[in-house]
Structure formats: structure tokens, C-alpha cells
């Protein structure tokens, strides 16, 4: 068994809650690896006595799943209405500029993923962004750009 296969096996078998499903198994893999490799689709299908088609149907439905290894860091910008009204578009533009990206996605050197989030849950502190899942509220384009720059100075999370 390769290292990757071992990690998938351990993540799926390590679930402690009573209700284990295709979705819960995929979430366990996502937590462990930060993405769903093809091997995980096969493994979860076998484990759940489902077809790969069934597993892919679930994996492709939820936008939190990604199918290639994560970049070192991830920045999310909330685009919910509360954040939109107080400047989320300007924040997003600034984040893209700081990342050197034209649009949502990964930088070429895989150091950073930038993505929208429908609601980060801290609407009272809008506009909100997150750096490696740590929330920062009341940001503006200037602070947002600096947050991205500071993040890129750090080592990655070493997935």
C-alpha cells in the first residue's frame, strides 16, 4: 500500500461516529489530505459497497471538495450579502492582485488558493476573509492585501 493509500485507509477507517456514509468518508479524506484523489474515490466506493459513480456523484456535488492537492495556503473571501454591501468586491480584487491571480483558483507555484466562500459566519464583522481558515473581519482592500502578503511569507501547512 502506498503512503497515500495508507492515509486514505486510516482516515476512512478512523471515523468514530456511528453513522458512516459516503459523504462522511469523503469528508474524513478531505480533512486528512486536503483533497480527494482518484484513489480515495475507489477506496470509498469499495468501503461503502457503492459504485465509483455513486461516490463521484456525491464528491462532485459539494463544492468544498477539490480533486487536486491543495496549495500551501488558502485564502477565502466571503461574498454573502452582508459582506457584499460593505465592500467584499474591493476586498476580493485586492486579494487577487496580491496573489497575482486573475480569478478564483491556485497560483501557478501552488503557494496559494483563492476562493469565494458563501458565508464565513461572522457577518457582524463584515467584510470577512479567512487565511488558512482563521477568520479576519472588518477588513478593507489594503488590509486584505497585507494579509495575503503576510500569509505568503509563512511556510505552508505541509500537507
Amino acid at each position, binding site marked *: 500500500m502506498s503512503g497515500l493509500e495508507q492515509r486514505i485507509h486510516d482516515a476512512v477507517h478512523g471515523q468514530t461516529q456511528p453513522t458512516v456514509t459516503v459523504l462522511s468518508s469523503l469528508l474524513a479524506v478531505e480533512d486528512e489530505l486536503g483533497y480527494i484523489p482518484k484513489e480515495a474515490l475507489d477506496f470509498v466506493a469499495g468501503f461503502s459497497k457503492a459504485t465509483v459513480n455513486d461516490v463521484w456523484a456525491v464528491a462532485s456535488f459539494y463544492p468544498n471538495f477539490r480533486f487536486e492537492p491543495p496549495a500551501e495556503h488558502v485564502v477565502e473571501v466571503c461574498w454573502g*450579502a452582508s459582506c457584499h454591501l460593505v465592500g467584499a468586491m474591493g476586498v476580493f480584487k485586492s486579494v487577487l492582485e496580491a496573489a497575482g491571480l486573475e480569478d478564483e483558483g491556485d497560483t501557478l507555484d501552488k503557494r496559494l488558493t483563492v476562493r469565494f466562500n458563501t458565508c464565513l459566519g461572522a457577518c457582524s464583522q463584515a467584510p470577512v476573509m479567512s487565511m488558512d481558515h482563521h477568520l479576519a473581519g472588518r477588513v478593507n482592500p489594503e488590509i486584505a492585501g497585507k494579509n495575503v502578503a503576510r500569509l505568503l511569507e509563512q511556510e505552508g501547512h505541509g500537507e
Partner: protein
Amino acid sequence: MASSFLEIGLEAGRRWQKLTAGDRPWIRVGTALCGEAAGAFEVAAAVESELASQGVSAEVSRVGCLGLCFAEPLLDVQLPGGHRVFYGNVDPTSVAEIVSAHVGDGAPVTAMALGYLAQEGSDAPVPDGIPDLDQHPMRVWENRIALKNAGNIDPMDIHQYVANGGYQALHKALTDLDPQKTLDEVKASGLRGRGGAAFPTATKWSFLAGNPATEKYVLCNCEEGDPGAFNDKNILESDPGTLVEGVIIAGYATGASKGYIFIRHGHNGPIDRCRAAVDQARELGFLGENIMGSDFSYEIEIALTGDSYVAGEESALMEAIEGKRAMPRFRPPFPAQFGLFGKPTNINNVKTLAYIPEIVSKGGEWFAGIGHDTSTGTVILCLTGPLKYTGMVEVPLGINLKDVIYEAAGGMRDGKTLKLLQTGGPLGGVLGADNIDLVLDFEILRDAGAIVGAGGIIAADETACIVDLTRSLIAFCQYESCGKCFPCRMGMSHLLEVLERICDLEGTPDDLTLMRSVGENMQAGSLCGHGQLGFNPVSSALRYFGPEFDAHIIDRTCPTGTCLTPRFSPAESRR
């Protein structure tokens, strides 16, 4: 064998006494998602390192949210036997002074203090020169029932919940009431579902109670995807014990065998705190076999979903727990006949269930005495947008919406004026500023074209463009359409396409007719509320702001200039 409830209560009381009136001060830092975004964890860490470096002894707790989110990071100091003194917008650099002067020397830093909260049973004088926080505009209108412990107790410590009346309602239900009498109290309360549909809770419960099956489920819905609403997550982060107790009592009243609490994956604050509350309840014998010595046995499991707004719809939620795509089911059969894994099931929102312990403790009639007409009790509102005071308030239904915005939330910040309110989440509606002289009541708000929904109220000032806001709401709805029903899947895309055209000042007068026609089809041809209500943002915007649409379409101008600035949207929301 777990200790008796009486012994647990005595132990919890001793611990609480030690915390509040022991030999050292108690510092509480608000660390719900709102606090986290404001830097509360950094402040809490700064408090701990200052205590260590100054050699000052104090208890530090990471509590939930008091509702005053605008003032976060928010921390308070309670000297032994004294009152709580709060410091707002605390910076890690100002922590040193608070620790040395207040915690160390017992002298509150008056100039920095936001206010004090008088503590029951304390005979200490109230601090001089510091305002009473209960007189703060955001707190004077409040009547805290579901939120009574929020911001006061450590959510990771069940003993603090028990010391504040926790699990007395369950004890009462198990010893003094039977399931039917428990359900009767909920019926007498007039409680209606707080997730959006406002369906009478007792009626829903009676469907499940009347089903003779032995395996039945109660589901608690904390999917909460509404941008602008965070009260469900906040309850889980601030006082998960109340929710867990509510889920247990719901199981008892309906004869259910198991409860599920359903949360979106990735919201780790709510998930971790809820897990702790469930595990600790089990350790103390409030879950499991023969709860509190009765013949009632019950378990609670926490189930996680992936990112999906529609997973908050009751039948899609069951699909997600079963591990499938979160898509709504055909009904009938209704969940009370054929629900999760085919078993009879009830689905309730977090807020609804968080009211249950107080309703059982104080009686349904007490709850029914609060509120307005058939909208009984309180409503938990999330106030966001460019308001002076953003945050979460629990106010009696029947309060005037104007008072909520201009008094409790302090009106708009930076001298701006209110243009509109967007209520009830993305499927809710907007109200023009001239039309908010309305009593908060499920029916009154619905008739005005907006809804109470889950309690999110987003305010916008005159710099906001209604067409741009409507486009943003529909972009969300389009992104989140699960795709099962084509009138919703394609209708949302059509609406977004038209709205983008209008934002680009390239719309035509026919576009409004086209949107209405698409909206009618979505309403008629969709299985769940997402498509059925999905035209609300557009229809309510047209109702109150028709001329602003005309300005874009006929005069080819965006009066606020918003539509001329760059616009971004998720790749997946593009056609």
C-alpha cells in the same frame, strides 16, 4: 452509576461559586466566530501571557457571544463576588493595563470600560463612572430566553450550564411530566419553527409522537447557510447545553430513539463545542440508557454536511445525513412517516429547540404571554450591514422593526441614511426604508414582502444599489441551486443573466416581464423552497425600488455608481 441529578447540581453550584466568588478574578473573552474574526483568540492568548508575566492569578475562560459583536473583541473581568466589567474593541496591546490595574490591583480601567453587568447575589457596589451595560441600546429591548447563558458561561463546561439551571427542564419532564404533558406545554407556548417556515412546533411534534414506530429520529438543523444569519452557529458556540437539552426533550416528547445535530463541515467552533456538550451530557447520565433513572433512553449524534445551502432544506438534510447529494425529496411521504433512513423523523431548527428547556421549565403559558398575536415568544435577530451596532439581539416578537434598526442597532454608521433592509436570508425579501414601520410578526412581515426567516436582517445605506444587491442575492441562489428541478436550476441562471445585463446598463424593458415569467415557473415547478421562494429577492426589490431598475434600463445609469465598479463571482456561478 452516574451521580444523582441533585448531587450533580450541588457540585455544579460549588464550582460556579468558586468561579464567581472564589479567591481570584474571572476573565471571560467572547470567542464565537464573530469574536474570532475580530481577533478574540489573540486577545485571550495575550491575557494569559500577561497574567503569567505579571505574576497575577486569574481564571480565564473562552466564552461565546454576548451579542454586542460591534464591540469585539470583548472581554470582562469579574473580581471575586463582584460585578462583571466589560472592555470592548480590546487590542492585545491594551491587555497589559487591564491585567495590571483591574485584575491585579482591583481597580477597573474606567476610561477603557464599555460597561458593567450587575451580578445577581452580589452586594458589591457597582463600579463608579462606568455605564450599566443593560442600558446599552442593544440590550434594553432584549428579553433573553434562548440566549440567557450566551456570553456568560464556558460552552465547554457542562457544570457551568447546570449551575445556571441547565437540565432542570429535562429533569422536570422526566419526573413530573410525561411525554404528552411535555408536548402539551410546547403546544400551550404557541412556539413556531424559527428556521423560516414558522410552522407550529407542537403540531409537527404530534405527527411524530403519533407514529407508533419504535425507531424514530429528531433532527436538529444547524446547516445555516443564510449570509447574514449566524444565530444557530452562535447558540452552538455560546451555549450548546441548551440546544442539547432541547434535542433530548424533543426526543422524549415525541418518543424518538435518537437525535442528530446537523452542522456544516468546517465550522469547527460550533462543531467542537457541540461535541463537548454531547459527550459531557453522556458522562453525566443525561444521554444514554435510562436517563436520570427513568425508562427513557436516547442518544445524540453529530452529523456533518459538505457545503450546500439546500442541505438546510428538511428532506435534503436527510439525504445529506444518509451520505448522498443534498437534494430535496418528493413529499408525500412526509418525514414523520418516512424520514431519515426511512424511519419517522422530525426536523427542527436550532433556535426552535433552544427555546424548549425554558418553555418546559417555566410553562407554555409563560412563553405565550410574550410576543404578538400568534407569533409568540422572542426572535433572535442578526443585525448586519453598515449599522452602528452590529450583532445579535433576542427581542420579543411584536417589537417595531423601526425600533430594532434605529434604536437597538443605533441606525446607520458614518452619518449615512438607511435605504433598505434585506430580511430572512437570500430567499427573503427587501423592505424600503419608508416601509419598516412594521411590527415584527411572522404574518405581518410576510405580507410586506419580506420574511422573518431565520432572523437575519441586513441593512444597507444610500450607497447601495438595489440592482447590484439583487444580482448578488440571485448569484448566491444560482450558485446554491442543487440542480434537481430544472425550473430552479435554469430559472436562477436566467434571472442572473438578466440581472447582470441590467447591471451592465444593457437591459431592456422586456427584461422585467421576462424575470416575472421565469419567477412564476420557478415557483410552480420546484420541489423545495429554494426554487419556490427564489424569485422573492427580485419581486420585493421591484415592489419597493422599481424606479431604480428603470434608471438602469431606461436612463442607462446606475444612480449609486455601484454597477460601474468591478464585479466578481465564483467560477461555479457562471454559465
